[in-house]
Structures are given as C-alpha cells and as structure tokens.
C-alpha cells in the first residue's frame, strides 16, 4: 500500500503531465487479507495489494478516462498521454461541469490501529480455528473473515487535495446441518475489539439449530418480521434504484415525478449520513465535492436525492457530493442510516400473533425499477411466529414485492440496528415488521 505523500506524488505527476488540460485524478490503494472456510476448515487464504489511478481528462464538452495500475512516473505520464489522445478524437457532447475547486483540502483518517493489530493472517486463522473447533458434526461452518485497509487520494488541475484512509474487518458465518438446515450471522467492524467473531458463530449456530424440520407454507401475503440483514437487502436495491438524481433524469427511478410526495409509511425515515459512526465516513466524493448529508425519506416523504456534478448541473442544483465514479449510476447515497423505532426486535416478535421471521434474502434483483419491484429468496433462517414465539422453521420461499407497497405497510421498526457493508459504503438499519408481504414461490422440488 502507498501512503498519503506517495499517492499525492502520483497525482502531481499526472496533473503536471496534463499541461493545460483540466484533469481529475483518483488514486486508490488497498490491501486486503481474507480467510475463507468451508466444511469447518480453512480452504482459501489470500492477500492482495492493489493500487491504481483513475485519470479523467476533460474538454469543455467531452472527457476521456484512463485507469492504470502502472504507477511509476513513466506509467502515469503514458496514461495521461493516452487520455489526452482519446480526448482529441472525441466529438463534442454533453457540457462537462467545471472541476471542484473548493475547499482546497479535505483529509481524514478513520484508521484504527487496534483493529489493524487484531487481524493478521495468523490471528485470523487462530481465531477461526478456535470457533471451528466448537462446531460439532453434523453441523459445519462456512464463511469468511477478512481485514482490509484502504486509502483514497484525489486531486485535480484546480489544485485541490483529498485524502481518506480507513480500515475495517468483516466476517460472515454460516452454520449448516448436513440436512441443509442453515443459520447465518455477519459482522462489520471499524474499531479494535468490535468484531465479535464468537457471537457471530453463536448466532449462526442458534439459527441453524432452530432451522430444523421446516414446514411448507403456501404462496401468498404474510406479515413478516425482517431482521436487519433482510431490511438491508431490500434497502440496498431500493437505494440503487431510486435515490439518485440520474435515475430521476433517466425516469428509471420509482421516485420519478414524485419527489416531495409521501411514498412510504410515515414511520420510515432514511438519511444518508456520512458522519454517523457506523457509516463509511468518506467526507468527499469521487469528484472531490464535499459530501453532504441527505434527508432521503422523512416520515415517508421523499425529500432529497443524491447528485454528482453532471446530474446536478442537469437539475440546476449543486452536487451533493455523492459521485461514486461510475457514470452508470451518477451518484449514490452510500451511508444509509434508518431512524430506529422504539421497540426491540425481541419485543416486536413477542407482540406478533402470526407472522414469518426472515433472517436474510438471497440473490435479490429488481424486476421492475419503476415499481420498485424486487424479487429474492429467504435464506439461512426462515421461521413461523405464533403468539409471540417462533414455533417452526419454514421452507425457503421467493418474495416478489414492490417496495412502494412494502414500505407503506410497516407495522413496526426496531430500536436495535446493525451495520452492513454494501457494494460501496455502509448501511445502518433496524428490523422491520411489514404487513401483506408477498411470497410468490416455493423452493422445494417435487421428487
């Protein structure tokens, strides 16, 4: 991995090589170690150290991008020359917004040394070994334990400097009986002592133990209690589909022409808050804009969406600092925080006469973005609740549901929240109890 001075040096070389051409340079350096286990044995154990530069050279109405991991001065100068050569041959197109020029510098470290000291390859193996030894046949453990460090530096021809460094640890644990009954728990940590591996193994084990002799239920609408992981699955796709300015402009968002309207239950408030201690916490975006907090949903009303420079310019507003450097998406909120409710998950379960408890979903995908229609399957712990207690495991089922309906039928939101790592960024979400949630298929085979 490279340090701040080294990354800035690379950016300086690129800016110098661009001459009079406006240029944006994003340098990313990361190192990650990941230990994977299956059948209660470590089967894959890897480390990677990757640094690359994404160089964007701009004209008034065009831009070209070159990404390279050849980060010697010569390699960087070659990449800039290629980007300029590509720019020259491009026809004029969309107006390219001016580069960010203020503030001159934003630097932040969310690096926790205690966490770094906890997760060497040897420590990962030993800590896993201790947990794996506790799993008794016919149960076995599967999953991963990983630790990563990331540094992000950004500069442009206006002379701005941005730097962020962080580290995190992550585990996912699935315990499965030889008959296929499984339970899952995961954890994400940003500070030393925060990742409770034993607790994750315990939770997954308890779920697997409870997930025996599943009953079959008919397709139809049920009251569900979605644990935080299941809520995260739904919200991750809802966020990708709906909360970006570009998706409004492309009319693909379920919020198209509905900003300002009440679209969800008033119990639901969703913020994008990079300052929340559970967020990823990068104070700037991939264009160098200062990251703002967003009030996405306030008591069910769609209030704000995320903009990068281009989508903001089209909408006549400033960037909200949510570029993720992917033209496809434009801008995405990456620090989702849902306002918690007042009752714990256990209280919500205890007050439920009839319902289904969902641990998490598998292979979720949008079916119809405009309707926020998602499909996915329950996985690793799906249970029936009667008179406040779990009475049976249930065979996994497929849900196909519009989030415009689901998030309008919220009966309760839990006070306890959990943190999850998304494609980019973190989500901090509670559990939810939702009425009339549609299960449209069963997973069993007729043999």
């Amino acid at each position, binding site marked *: 991995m490279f340090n701040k001075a080294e990354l800035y040096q690379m950016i300086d070389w690129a800016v110098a090589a661009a001459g009079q051409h406006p240029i944006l340079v994003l340098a990313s350096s990361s190192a990650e*170690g*990941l*230990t994977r*286990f299956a*059948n209660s044995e*470590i*089967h*894959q154990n*890897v*480390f*990677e*150290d*990757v*640094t*690359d530069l994404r160089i964007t050279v701009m004209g008034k109405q065009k831009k*070209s*991008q*070159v*990404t*390279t*991991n*050849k*980060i010697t001065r010569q390699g960087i100068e070659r990449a800039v020359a290629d980007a300029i050569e*590509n720019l020259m*041959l*491009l*026809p004029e197109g969309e107006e390219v917004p001016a580069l960010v020029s203020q503030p001159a510098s934003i630097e932040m470290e969310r690096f926790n040394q205690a966490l770094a000291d906890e997760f*060497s390859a*040897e420590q990962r*193996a*030993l800590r*896993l070994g201790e947990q794996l030894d506790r799993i008794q046949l016919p149960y*076995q453990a*599967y*999953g*991963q334990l990983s630790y990563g460090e990331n540094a992000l530096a950004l500069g442009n021809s206006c002379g701005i400097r941005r730097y962020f460094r962080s580290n995190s640890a992550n585990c*996912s*644990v*699935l315990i*499965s009986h030889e008959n*296929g009954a499984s339970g899952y728990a995961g954890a994400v940590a940003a500070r030393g002592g925060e990742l409770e591996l034993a607790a994750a193994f315990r939770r997954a084990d308890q779920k697997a133990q409870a997930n025996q002799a599943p009953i079959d239920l008919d397709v139809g609408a049920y009251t569900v209690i979605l644990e935080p992981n299941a809520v995260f699955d739904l919200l991750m796709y809802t966020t990708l589909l709906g909360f970006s300015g570009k998706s409004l402009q492309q*009319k693909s968002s379920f919020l198209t022409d509905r900003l300002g309207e009440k679209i969800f239950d008033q119990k639901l408030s969703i913020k994008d808050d990079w300052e929340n201690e559970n967020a990823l916490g990068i104070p700037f975006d991939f264009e160098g804009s200062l990251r703002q907090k967003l009030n996405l949903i306030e008591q069910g009303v769609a209030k704000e969406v995320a903009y990068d420079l281009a989508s903001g310019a089209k909408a006549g507003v400033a960037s909200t600092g949510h570029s993720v450097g992917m*033209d496809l998406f434009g801008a995405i909120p990456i620090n989702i925080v849902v306002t918690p409710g007042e009752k714990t998950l256990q209280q919500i379960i205890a007050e439920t006469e009839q319902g289904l408890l969902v641990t998490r979903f*598998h*292979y979720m995908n949008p*079916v*119809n*973005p*405009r309707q926020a229609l998602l*499909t996915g*399957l329950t*996985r690793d712990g799906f249970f029936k609740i009667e008179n406040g207690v779990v009475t049976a495991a249930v065979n*996994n089922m*497929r849900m196909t549901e519009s989030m415009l309906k689901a998030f309008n039928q919220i009966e309760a939101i839990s006070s306890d929240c959990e943190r999850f790592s998304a494609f980019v960024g973190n989500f901090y979400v509670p559990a939810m109890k939702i009425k009339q949630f549609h299960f*449209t*298929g069963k*997973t*069993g*085979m*007729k043999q």
Partner: protein
Amino acid sequence: MKEKILEVLAFLKEKQVDYADLRVNEILQENIQTENLKVQSLSTTTSYGYGIRVFLDGSMGFAASQDFSQMEATALQALAIAKASRLVQKTPIKLAVKPIVVDHYETPIEIDPFTVAKQVKLELLFTAEKAMRQAAPAIFRTHGALGFRKEYKIFADTEGSYISQTLVESGGGIDAVAVAQGEMQTRSFPNSARGNYATAGYEFVRDLQLVENSARVAKEAMALLTAEECPSGYFDLVIDPSQLTLQIHESVGHPLELDRILGYEAGYAGTSFISTDMLGKFHYGSPLINIVGDATCPCGLGTFGYDDDGIAAQRIPLITKGVVENVLTSRDTAAVAQLLPNGTARADGWARIPIVRMTNISLLPGDFELDELIGGVQYGFYLDINQSWSIDDRRTNFQFATEIAYEIKDGKLTGKIFKNPLYTGITPEFWNSCDGVAKAKYWKLFGTPNCGKGEPGQVAHVGHGSAPARFRKVKVGVADVQ
C-alpha cells in the same frame, strides 16, 4: 520475465512447498458508450500484476502484488499465509494430478480490436443510435456500447508447466428506452447487459448487425408502452437463446460447479441441489436436453487454451439425454471428490485465485424447425431477451423476467406483444418440461461478461449457446398470488 518467474518458483521449492504456481496477467480494456447521440464514456483500463499460490503441508496461501521488484517478498507472504492456515488445518488440501504443459495459446482473430480507430467504433454506435431515433422519434433514450479486452497471461508452476496465452474479447450492443406516464420499457440487441461478447476480434462487432436491428428495437420499445401486461398462469413457452443463455447459466452452469457442490461457496454464492452421487443417475431434464461445457468452442466468451490450474481447455458432456454426467472441476475440488480436473479453474485477474468457473455451457441443438416448436403451442408465448434474474442458493427456484413476450395462438405468432413477462419454476421440473429444441441453424452463442462468485468477489467471462426451445406448462407471472 520467464527467468524471474522460474527463479521465484525455485525459491519456493527450496522452502519445501508441496506445490506453487505463479500467474502474471496484463489486462487491457477499452469501453465506449454512447447515449442520445453523445459519447457517454470512453475509458481504457490497464491492470498488470502477479499472484503466487502456495500449498504447504496441505495448507493454502496466496499473495498478489503489482510490484515486480518484490516477487520474492510476495512469495514469502504467500508462504506465511499458508503457514497461518496450517496452524489450524485438519484435513490437508490435495491437488489432483495433471500433465506438465509448456505451450502458448492465442485467441484466433481476424482484426485486433485495439488497432481499429476509436472514431470507427463511435461511428458504428452513432449510426445505430440514429437509426433507432429515426424509426421511433419519440424514443426517450438510445444507448450503444462496445467493449474490448486483451489479456496476456503467463502460468508457471513448480511441477514444470509454463504456459503463455493471449486472449482477446470483443462485443457490444444497443438498447432503446421508451418512457410514458409511470412506465418504462426497454428493448435491446443482441442481448441486454450491453450486448453480446465473444473471444474474437473486431470482426465479431462488425458482424453483429447493430445498425440493421436498430429500427426494430426502437419500435418495439415504443410498442411495449401500450402493450398489455403479460397474463399470469401456466403457459407453454418457446424461449429464445437470448434468454436461455441466462437460464442455462443460473440453473445448469452454477449448480454443476464442484466447489459449490462441496460447500466452498456456501457462505456466499450458495451451494447446489446436485451432489456427486447423482452423476449418471439424476434426470436433470428431458431426454432432449444435452448440455456441454466446452472451453474449446470457437468465439465462446469462456474459450481459452488453458485454465489457471494449467489444464488444457476441453469439452465436457455435462448432461446427456437429460441425465447429469459430469460437473465442472478444479484441481483442488477434483481431488476431494475423486474426479478428474477438467480445466475450469479460472481467476479474474492477477490478484485473485482460480476457482471453478463456467466455460461455455451450451444446450446442444435438437431436431425441430422453429415453426414446429411454435406450431405445437395452443396458447403461449415466445420470450426474448433477459431483463431480470434471481435463483435460490441451491439453484432450484428461479425467476426470470424478459423484455418482451410474443403471443402464440393456435400454433402461430399472432403479432401481439405483452410487456413485463416473467416466468418462474424449479430447475429440474423446468428442464424436464422441455419437449423440443430447435435445429443447429437456429443455434446462437452468447457471452456473459459479468458472472460473479467468490470472496473476494471475482467476475468471470463465460459463454452459453442454445437454439430456441419449448417448455410446457411453465408458471408465468405472479399477479395471481393473493
């Protein structure tokens, strides 16, 4: 470079490793996208580095770096990770035996896509976009994409193999988006998700016929806005290769990956409803279903000379006359299941380890004329181009949405179209409901450059060929679920 690689492997041999391999990759990519007659993006990517995999006393370690001046240090890091694994390893990891190979392979191409001027590529996309807009002036958005990839690979191991490869990929596609009040409909060509990709040169893109299909694509997108919603119920379906591609991928390719079967992906991507004791016995589909994994198939996106275990590409019969016969294996998984490694271990670059990946998993053609397939349907639909996909963690319950459904009535296409078609089922029940596969002249090969699997995540480039096929009494839609 060769000298340095051999030096590092010799260094590891001195450290008494069971086995080590070293892979060097340089990947060049070029992606061009246009939208509404403007360049949306022109980007090129270069990634160059190496990964060293070590097995020590049956324990595995891997380290990857882009710093070629630190190869010994990286090798020692891989060794240290293997030693860390060894601290808690109970069952030693074994590797199945393979031949020693010294060879070079190159994707056969006519035109190196990186030698074709970017202006030519842009002109192709703009011409297609103009044709779409001319045919449907009210179209909301038109889009075109081209992508090219060239990968130089070296594989070397402590057993004596040394293999170099140059793999070239080309592809692209177009799509049109129509929008009305509360409604958005898309039509794509030749497939969704940016089109079709192959191991081929620019000639593949030249022959895609993007411009020739532009008008139809745009008109159909507009027509879908006013089309009826596809009905729910049980219907006979004839499914186009553009959708069967993903059906095969999700419900045949993935469940037949041995690492999934052994639980290696259980914590993430999932497992499989198939077990090795089903081989030669289990009726995966009807007797008309013959599926192969063919890494030698010309132009297949999953075609190569050697996999990242150093094993030659091969054609594997996976399902023969409906019965599952083989699974996809790597050296480490084959050793566990006492099977042969069959050349399907691939990494998505220098920084990741090889894992079992699909090659070109294809449904072999049958004996039917397309008219015969359609002619055998009283009432049903012809489904074209995937729009959405999902399947459970054991690969049984799937649900796919397609861009369009063409009505079939009394054995004929009526010309009527339906929007938002969706079909769902259980893998073996679905494949057993197949009672007709079209002839070889209808067979098409599609490339899927975005198959995700593994931790850290890896993206594989795979291929799937098929001809249109007919399936009986398939559940369509979910609107009837109360």
